[in-house]
């Protein structure tokens, strides 16, 4: 029935707007790819990519951003998994407050958050800008805040799909303590949710500009902007590299979630 209805109403209107959307999606990406390959006049080649991969500042930015992303993911998971677990188990009425708090980074624009962070932590009593190590702590705190809406939602959805209370009581009646309940029972059940949150976290940190720019740390974002000011072809290549990173992490997520779906189905059929 559904199929018949929809087939009947496929019209010029539908096709027109659909194609326009696809063009809007793909033309800029195609344009970037094409442009990035045209550094040498008359031929298509990877010269722009070679230049970027030979640039030590790119690798410095890459290494720095990856390190920051990994630490951010660890800190973020360490904060949110126990907190949300506790919320489910002990204080479910805290949910509205938690939801409002974790949505705040969408309300407070990044530039404002950074403004506040810099002005709060650049002078005593809470000074964190005296050394690069302390600045990095500030960076990670900022990244955790910025990626908080994604991490919270991912873990929250994962936690909802398992019966936290029953699992906890079962584990406790078998004699395990809080730490073991969390580490051996809850977290393995949340693997996919945590992975999902982590990958979005990773993509966010890798593309982030404002924090690193204003705290003057050598992340990938400021490197991109600087390159864009002086070069023509390399930025296009860099954009493609950046897209590949994002798609790689999201593709990975797709892969893992479809695999776990299959496993679930196998469990059901056997």
């Amino acid at each position: 029935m559904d199929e018949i209805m929809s087939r009947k109403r496929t019209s010029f209107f539908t096709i027109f707007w659909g194609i326009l959307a696809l063009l809007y999606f793909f033309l800029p990406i195609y344009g970037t790819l094409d442009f990035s390959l045209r550094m040498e006049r008359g031929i298509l080649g990877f010269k722009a990519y070679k230049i970027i991969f030979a640039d030590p500042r790119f690798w410095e930015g890459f290494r720095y951003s990856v390190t920051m992303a990994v630490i951010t993911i660890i800190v973020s998971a360490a904060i949110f998994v126990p907190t949300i677990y506790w919320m489910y188990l002990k204080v479910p009425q805290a949910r509205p407050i938690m939801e409002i708090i974790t949505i705040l980074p969408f309300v407070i624009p990044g530039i404002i958050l950074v403004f506040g962070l810099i002005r709060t932590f650049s002078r005593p009593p809470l000074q964190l800008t005296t050394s690069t190590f302390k600045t990095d702590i500030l960076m990670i705190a900022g990244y955790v805040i910025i990626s908080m809406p994604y991490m919270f939602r991912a873990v929250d959805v994962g936690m909802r799909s398992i019966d936290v209370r029953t699992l906890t009581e079962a584990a406790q009646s078998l004699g395990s303590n809080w730490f073991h309940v969390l580490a051996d029972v809850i977290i393995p059940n949340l693997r996919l949710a945590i992975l999902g949150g982590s990958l979005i976290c990773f993509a966010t940190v890798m593309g982030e500009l404002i924090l690193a720019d204003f705290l003057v740390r050598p992340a990938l974002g400021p490197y991109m902007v600087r390159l864009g000011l002086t070069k023509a072809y390399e930025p296009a290549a860099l954009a493609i590299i950046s897209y590949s990173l994002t798609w790689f992490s999201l593709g990975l997520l797709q892969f893992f979630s479809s695999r776990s779906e299959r496993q679930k189905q196998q469990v059901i059929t056997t």
Partner: protein
Amino acid sequence: MSQMFATRQRKLWREYPLWNWVGLFPFFIFIVFFLVFPSLRLFTGAFTNQEGGLTLDNLKVFENPNVLKAYIMSLQVSAITAFVGGFFGFLVAYSITQGGAPRWMRNVISTFSGLAANFGGVPLAFSFIATIGQTGIITAMLKKACFNLENYGALAQFLASGGVNVSDITNVCPLNPYTYGFSLYSLSGLVLAYTYFQFPLMILTITPALEGLKKEWYEASTNLGATPAKYWRDVALPVLMPSILGASLLLFGNAFGAYATARALTGGSIPLVSIYIGQQIRGDVLGNPNEGYALAFGMVAIMTLTIVAYSLLQRRATRWMKS
């Protein structure tokens, strides 16, 4: 009634006494340090003077013509991209939900919307520069579509008879957007680039509402003799309106807070509030840090209004999505 409330309270207390909240303290402490303190710093800064006394003087910053210009520009960009992105996104979302687009098209568009809505930032600016910047691929293609007036004798004669100096236009490129005052590095370019992440966001937020439009409503109204236009005016649009308005507000806020794309695309030559605040962080362009806080406070106030209105509308909208 009050007794019921009291017993409910007591029950809640027994079930969730205060020490149950202890487990949330590490999270709250983190939030207090890295979200509440910074926000308070801006807030108190906006309403105190250099000596620390309470004052409303800092709000005078909104009389500063440069600040005013930045706010107007930001509001303009946000409103235009919310409208353009919202309209386009709505039509696309309608095509893939109700319009019966082919399955592959539906899949590609919904997958890509999820990606593109988070696309923003510096790479997006680079993509648009490479595609439709001065030397971009599409620009080059459009520039190539030229014709020489000498080859079109009749047209040249016609123009000459109209008093046009034909020898000036030997090479006409009617498709080159740059001859019509378009520039990627101006307002029109910013709108074009922002639309890239605005319309997918519209698709994502409006699709649930469109899926909530029941076929029975259409059938019922046509059975009662309504034309499709009347169905839209009296049934579909009233049901969808809260969702459409809410989604547009979300788009508005999304553009209003954006920084990286504008920075990388225009190098700060377009005076947006976010760019202005960036300059204030770097070098106190206002000459008064407290006025800078007031500037930031104004931005948060607008964002808060937008998001609160959005969630109120969203609550109204979900009435139709249940069941």
